[in-house]
């Protein structure tokens, strides 16, 4: 393949960074890439990355669609907390928390509640015309309060075998949370690229006025993406709370909105809206999770983990910036083309 075309591909730098991160892991732990089968479950660091990426991938998917319309959703972390809190509360009330049917109902109820919150966000943004960052800030702050009301300010512990499967279970040796995330990616791709939704989203993000005059019902579409984002955040919240078998209203989804925004940006979707890349966002989410795991495995001291993460992100963003590349690499190419 043509080298320049490869370098210009918008997913080149994210992939390069991911490869470097994985390779640097190998230096510090020789069996990093080893995947083994134990008790019918796949084990290994790579599997671990996939499993732990799941909530962020889900949240980043919703965030991608919201950002493509020129919006932003800060409330996803709170929605995660609410969904986990409601699920744990309801399961605690079940007479038999180990039977599958009732647990499924509970899961459905938690996601339904999240849909309502998504509608609320969409209503504020699309109908009342409040700036997305403010509109979703309301729920970001209030949502943690709602979650604490649900759990009465306590950390709710649950013991339910079916519920545990969502975040910590395995199906055919593969982590269930990974399967859920993969299904969500497939669903998002199908809904946006198999229909005309993707085009209409990009159009609304590109120019809301022109889109309205072209007959696009921007309001409806905008509400839809916030509902979508909240639903995915809800599922992410279930995975998280199931994995730790409890509902912690403060820890669940803490700062995940920022990680998700970062994942979207790393994936090449501009915050100003318009063109979006689902593959890019998924890649971005995996990179961020890998980064967290790498920080631990290469032995970065806990107090400097965030700094380490920041440095890698800065390098990646610089590599993706056309202006920066032109400044640095432009010099080399200029030297080559101008005859002495």
């Amino acid at each position: 393949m043509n080298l320049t075309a490869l370098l210009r591909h918008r997913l080149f730098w994210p992939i390069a960074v991911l490869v470097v991160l994985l390779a640097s892991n190998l230096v510090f732990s020789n069996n990093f890439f080893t995947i083994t089968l134990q008790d019918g479950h796949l084990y290994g660091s790579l599997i671990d990355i996939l499993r732990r990426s799941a909530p962020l991938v889900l949240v980043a998917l919703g965030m991608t669609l919201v950002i493509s319309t020129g919006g932003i959703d800060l409330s996803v972390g709170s929605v995660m907390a609410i969904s986990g809190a409601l699920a744990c509360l309801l399961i605690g009330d079940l007479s038999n928390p180990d039977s599958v049917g009732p647990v499924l109902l509970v899961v459905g109820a938690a996601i339904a509640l999240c849909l309502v919150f998504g509608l609320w966000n969409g209503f504020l943004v699309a109908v009342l015309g409040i700036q997305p960052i403010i509109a979703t800030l309301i729920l970001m702050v209030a949502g943690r309060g709602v979650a604490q009301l649900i759990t009465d300010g306590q950390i709710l512990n649950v013991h339910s075998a079916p519920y545990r499967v969502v975040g910590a279970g395995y199906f055919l040796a593969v982590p269930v949370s990974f399967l859920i995330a993969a299904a969500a990616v497939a669903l998002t791709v199908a809904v946006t690229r198999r229909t005309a939704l993707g085009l209409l989203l990009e159009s609304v993000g590109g120019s809301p006025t022109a889109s309205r005059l072209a007959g696009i019902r921007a309001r409806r579409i905008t509400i839809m993406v916030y509902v979508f984002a909240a639903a995915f955040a809800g599922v992410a919240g279930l995975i998280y709370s199931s994995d730790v078998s409890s509902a912690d209203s403060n820890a669940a989804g803490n700062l995940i909105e920022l990680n998700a925004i970062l994942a979207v940006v790393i994936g090449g979707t501009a915050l100003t809206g318009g063109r979006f890349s689902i593959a890019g966002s998924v890649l971005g989410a995996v990179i961020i999770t890998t980064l967290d795991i790498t920080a631990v495995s290469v032995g970065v001291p806990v107090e400097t983990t965030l700094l380490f993460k920041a440095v890698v992100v800065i390098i990646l963003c610089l590599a993706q910036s056309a202006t920066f590349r032109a400044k640095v690499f432009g010099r080399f190419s200029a030297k080559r083309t101008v005859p002495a």
Partner: protein
Amino acid sequence: MVLQMTGIRKVFPGVVALDGVDFRLLPGEIHALMGENGAGKSTLIKVLTGVYDIDGGEIELAGERVRFTGPLQAQQAGISTVYQEVNLCPNLSVAENIFIGREPRRFGRIQWSEMRRRADKSLARLDLDIDVSAQLDSYSLAIQQMVAIARATDIGNTRVLILDEPTSSLDASEVEQLFAVMRRLKENGTAILFVSHFLDQVYEIADRMTVLRNGGLIGEYRTAELPQMQLVSKMIGKELEALEQIEEEVREAPRRDRTIIEAKGLGRTGSIAPFDLTIHAGEVVGLAGLLGSGRTELARLLFGADRPDSGDLAVDGQPVKFHSPRDAMTRGIAFSSENRRTEGIIGELTVRENIILALQAARGWTRPIPRRRQDELVDRYVQALQIRPADPERLVRDLSGGNQQKVLLARWLITEPRLLIIDEPTRGIDVGAKAEIQRLVAQLADGGMAVLFVSAELEEVLRLSHKIEVLRDRRLVEELENGDDVDADRIMHTIASGATP
């Protein structure tokens, strides 16, 4: 010689935008740069102002060889530009806009009163007396344009002033005002590079002209020595018979047996007074009037882009209420806005995506147009309207103004509307494309489509319309059957006096 460009070459991926173009400017002259859309005018200007680097050739400014790496450098060297679309910050004050980036300072603090005083002075030179502390977007587009010119000429050592389509949003008296300013600058020795699609204006103001076609240089002429017809055929490279043919073709009045849309007392406070208007199938109705007379506002009411607060609207004899453009679309109405860039094209999408957008919106997101069908439709219209470059996967923002306009027309034509409302479709585009669009409108009407044609150019309205609605001060003042007795003077009279003579 203040500026000499020799053998300028500029290549974009897949296109040679400029191929060995020479261009020179004398001090104290007004020089028109002429050519069709895509001829290379904009590219040449961007090369001159440092937006683009050149791939070949030389630029000499006042005898010194220069090579700009950015617009700021060009500006510092004395080349100032006013672009086609006003390039200012609408949310800042007039004074701030004029002095942005070079505010008068003392001890690091901006001297606001000094800035306002100097802004007043520089606008006074343009015979403009406005409150410079008011926000820019509280003024009309025409005033904003003047502010942009004030900004460009206020920069101390301006040797070359580039005016790219400065008159496209000005009315006649404002154009005169601008020309007065241009003449004054010329007397002071400033060389002015003037780009305009209005030939009459070019002949009124320019001393010399340089003609480009397809990125190549055709020649440099004295305005007085090149008749208009010759200029046009040099620009488009063929004779202009086609343009004149339209005149006979359309005039034949339609039968008016099928009413498409009927407005009774339709109006919106503050934008257009209540009006009556009936449009029939196969009829071209022209809207004439000055800038700000309510032309666009009337059109927007018919399309549901704005909501009326009085009156009734009926489509096919049935009363309708449009809550959004979408409602109007389901009734077979299409509207192409005058603001191509902000209300028309979606720059970061491709030509194909822009063309199918309205049709796709009408079908809803759950029923995507199959890719094969998309390609079919897009190919057909790219060919029929001669959209250049003929690459459906190119981003629409990279196309020239005229081609963007054609993309918009294609977007609406594939929805097969029964009433096509087109607002200023020929503004800022060249003679050749203009003729093509006019011919298209005539053909569509012959095929039974109703067309509401909005244009600031009376000649164009007269040439195309069966019926002309004259607007003045946001009021529909007269309806004229277009016949031999109706001419530009007659309409001008109504516009000027506001009453039927």
